[in-house]
């Protein structure tokens, strides 16, 4: 867990950079951020002084949510994003020890909802579970969870059949989404929503930067180490980790190195055949090569499948709403 002094040091270091940037964004990742409530309180105090800095919804699995936290959230203005991979326990069995825990989470979310409105639900899509995705989304929507984001998980092998399942599910999801919109229902499913807005506005650069922050984001681990990528800090491969390591808050941080990674191309570091050129959402996704479970590199086929999934979401959205 990050110490208060580390937090303050990081904050002090970040502030001048935040002031130069348009719409600076702070993101807390875990683990489980709600375990560090005291840090959240400190952070809230810092944010109340620097109102320009926006804090994204804090990810949580929702199990720790209680009245105290809810009060804190109300007073601080912070908000939560719940990691839920569907409305059924089956879809979430990897997250919760038993069904009771899952039911408790649903109850907590319900309490949150009554206080703060429809929460953001972050759905991680695992290979092997993609074929039931559309059904789970339908159930979530039916139960009032109409703010959803989909994220195919990185670091897992996506085989061809998993990718095919995902494509089919995603097409169904787009249909569900279109139907809801057509009936006037307020719904948000990302990345579809985001892609629609950005494509309509021609904000191709935003599409690219939202998909991969490499080159313009910095991540601090609890001990103050700085990385150019969130996932890099979890890498077991020391060489690879060093590629993204930027320094330590207590020593020096190399921002030039961070900026240079903006121009990283995975085709430069591997013999991958470039298939997706525009918008450039997977060109830097070196994380696509990693198997976190096996602590090794994935087969090329799995890498291609993972990259294809990301590009598929964008192109399918484009094809549905913009291609005549």
């Amino acid at each position, binding site marked *: 867990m990050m110490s208060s002094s580390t937090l303050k040091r990081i904050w002090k270091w970040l502030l001048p950079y935040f002031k130069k940037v348009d719409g600076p964004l702070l993101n807390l990742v875990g683990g489980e951020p709600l375990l560090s409530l005291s840090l959240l309180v400190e952070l809230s105090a810092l944010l109340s002084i620097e109102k320009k800095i926006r804090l994204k919804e804090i990810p949580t699995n929702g199990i720790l949510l209680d009245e105290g936290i809810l009060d804190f959230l109300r007073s601080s203005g912070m908000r939560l994003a719940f990691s839920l991979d569907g409305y059924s326990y089956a879809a979430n069995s990897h997250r919760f020890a038993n069904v009771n825990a899952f039911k408790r989470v649903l109850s907590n979310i319900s309490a949150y909802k009554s206080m703060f409105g429809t929460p953001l639900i972050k759905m991680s899509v695992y290979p092997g579970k993609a074929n039931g995705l559309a059904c789970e989304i339908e159930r979530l929507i039916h139960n009032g969870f109409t703010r959803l984001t989909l994220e195919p998980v990185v670091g897992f092998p996506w085989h061809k059949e998993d990718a095919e399942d995902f494509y089919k599910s995603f097409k169904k999801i787009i249909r569900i989404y279109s139907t809801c919109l057509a009936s006037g229902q307020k719904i948000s499913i990302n990345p579809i929503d985001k892609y629609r807005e950005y494509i309509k506005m*021609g904000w*191709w*650069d935003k599409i690219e930067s939202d998909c991969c922050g490499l080159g313009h984001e910095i991540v601090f681990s609890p001990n103050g180490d700085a990385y150019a990528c969130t996932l890099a800090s979890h890498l077991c491969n020391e060489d690879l980790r060093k590629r993204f390591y930027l320094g330590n808050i207590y020593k020096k941080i190399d921002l030039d190195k961070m900026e240079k990674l903006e*121009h990283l*191309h995975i*085709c*430069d570091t591997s013999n991958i055949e*470039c*298939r997706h*050129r*525009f*918008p*450039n959402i997977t*060109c830097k996704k070196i994380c696509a090569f990693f198997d976190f479970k096996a602590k090794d590199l994935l087969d090329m086929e799995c890498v291609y499948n993972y990259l294809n999934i990301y590009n598929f979401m964008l*192109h399918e959205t*484009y094809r549905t709403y*913009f*291609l*005549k």
Partner: protein
Amino acid sequence: MGPGMIKSPALDVANLAALIRQTGRYRLGLIDQRVDVINASAASSNWASGLFLLNQFSRCFDHLLKCPDHALNAFTKNVIVNAGSPKADFFIFSISVLEQFSLQYLIVSLCLAKALKVSQPCAKIVFFGNCPKKHARKLMAVFSFVDAFLEDGNEFSLLDYLGRGRDNSPVKGVIFRADKGLTYTDERRVLGLNKMPRPYFGLFDLRRYSSSGKVVLPYEISRGCANKCFFCYYIHKGKLAHKDIGKVTDDLAFLSKKYKTNYFHFMDAAINSDEAYLNRLCPALRARVPKINWSALAIPNISKRLLISMKAGGCRQLRWGVEYASPKMLKLISKKTTLDSIIDAIKNAHELGIYNYVTLLSGLKQEAKADIDKTNKFLARMHPYIDSVKECVWGELGHFSLAYLEALLCGRPAIESDKKKAEQYASILKKLNIPSEDIIEVLTAPHRAAFIISPQDSFPGGGTVDDDGRSLLSIFKAISLLKARNIAGIEYLNFLLLFGEHAKIQGYFLRHPFRTPEGKERILVELMAPLVKKSSFYFFYISWWDRNLRTALALARYLKKAHPSSKIIFWGPHCNFYSKEISRKYAFIDKVLRTDAPETILELLEKKATVPAAPGLMDYSMHIDFLAKHGLTPPVLFDYETSCGCKHNCFYCSSLSGKALWFKDIFLVSKDLRALAKLAIEPNVYFHDDALNMDNGRLGALLDIMAGIKPRLSWSCYMIAKDVSEALLKKMAYAGCRHIRWGIETLDPYKQRAIDKGLNTQEIAKILFAANRHGIDNQISVIVGFPYECSKDLDLAIDFITNNRKNISCVNVYQFKLRRNSPIYAYPGKFGISIDHTLDSGSTDGMPFSEKNGLPWQLKKSQQEYISNILKLKVKSLGLIDQDPRIYFSNLVRHA
């Protein structure tokens, strides 16, 4: 004495004169009354007063046969006195009109002959022409003062008669008066056309026959006619003889040289009577007398292939004996023509640029109103393809039957069928604005050509005048060629410049923004039209990316309505690719050229195929005069090219300047550049060559020339960044080079290898460094959005520009456009793309395409725009400008 039919010297007289002259035994003289009438000289005023007398046929015959008419006596006496009261042993009268035997000419000749006989009883009066035998014998029987009459239309017969002395034996082909009375024989003389000497025009004052500064000489390639039209009295009808082709070409070459003319009218009854012969003749004409322009009579039943051969052989005009557009009358006339064959012949000739001169017949007794109506409809339908129409009313040419002659001789009333009828087509010709000019007038008509650059469609906004150098170069290449060929009547109107600097006009348009483009165009046309004179041709130059297409169309539409016989021609880079679309959409445009080659313009004006000639000197005087006349700023730059085309075949290039590379003669280049240097105190030249270093050896020679020119030129050029040594750049700088435009295109090594130029990033950097070291501004161009391009290409471009920032002055970022005529357009599959023709609007510069394993077109277009914007922003952030090269150079030299 005697006339021909059309406004050219009489061939029959020239033929006979040549034959007689050959003997060496006679002194020849010519009394040419007709040329006075043609030129409306003082002597013709006497004719004017006498013509009304001469058209009273009965009165004339009474004068000739019964009682002398005082007025006619006075008239003929006047004519003879005005002609110098000539004395001769033989007075030979020609009484033909083309191939017809003319009553009017006969009567005039008889009146004059009688007067001459009275004053010189010993002189022999001889009549000749295409007179039917029966007519000749009748006339000889009646008119005792006529001593001889040619019966067979063969000049050799007449020569024999002239040389007979006291021998009264019959002479083949001539009826003559001997002691015992009229002597003649029915024995026929063989027509020996190949033995005919070249016609002798030395007796004529040819200057007085010139039309628009040109003399058209008549010539016959054949004699006779394959047809036997019932209304025609041609004595050679039904038989046909041709001269040997070698003789024809020799004669024409001689006549052309001797009489200093390249214009001929072939007097043959129908040039295409023998197609096999004509097929051999035309190539011979092209080979032996390539400069001649000719006109001829033709039967409108002819293949396009033959017409092409004729055009290549110098044919500029064809007089079509259409007669009627009624199938019934065509069948009756039996010339083996049908309405379809007539339409095809005229359309094909028009398409090939051959003038169509149409003759129609009216007044035949078999004619019905329906036949006239059908012919009127034909004219209405075909008038866009017809240049002139002549209606021959029955009797007008003087056709007359023997029965009519006898009636006149006996003083009986004229036979109804022989009386001259009224014109039938005058009103429709007037309504359709079809002229009825003489054949010679059409053939020799001076052609005025107006070259027009209309303002841009976005006027008063849009690009500046500085970036339109290519239009000036193309136009003045054409104008220079026309002037070198002594073509007068050229007009140049640059409304882009004129309005561009006219503050009041600009101000007006800025204060009154128009709701619709049509409203603005109407006002622009109202401003332009008064400055545009009537021309035979209006050449509208449409610049790249059709920036001025709409305004050009608006003015062209107006001019076509005002001058329907004028030809509207669109040309320029946009037209090179979109000629079909423009032609299909705008019927008032007569032709859309697919090339900028000045020879094409010349061909249109000269109406003949032009042998491609090496380019001559550039002449910008009209441009300078135009600017001075309108008080416009003198030109800052002169556009020029020392070569055209490119030796490379880069896959994206549409080869606008031509696939084949040619170089202008360096001597001419030297002369041109020296001339340009005199046009300004600080002469600045913008070279449009695809690359000045296509040949380094030649470039070296060019630089030596430029270094020696005073005042020193300042110039800009395109170069290929390959094999350019520092020594060469140093020499260029010394010779006045201030600015080089480098087509870098891409910094991706893979794509560089795919581009034919074979560039290399390291070498480019070295060259830029060296050029900059010698004070040359480097302007580079980069193309983004190639098929299968990705962000790496962008990164490479950004890195290159950033790293070489100090050696670069200006960067142009262009989006890849799939252009027609490029290799990638021809073989899209080879490049992994497919072209979406359904999305092609037909008027923009670039075809939509999709990457087969990549982006669909809409997304590809977004990618191109996105990358382009990023790169442009980067260029700007580095303090570099992205400016049109010509504008950049203009500013560079202005601020020097």
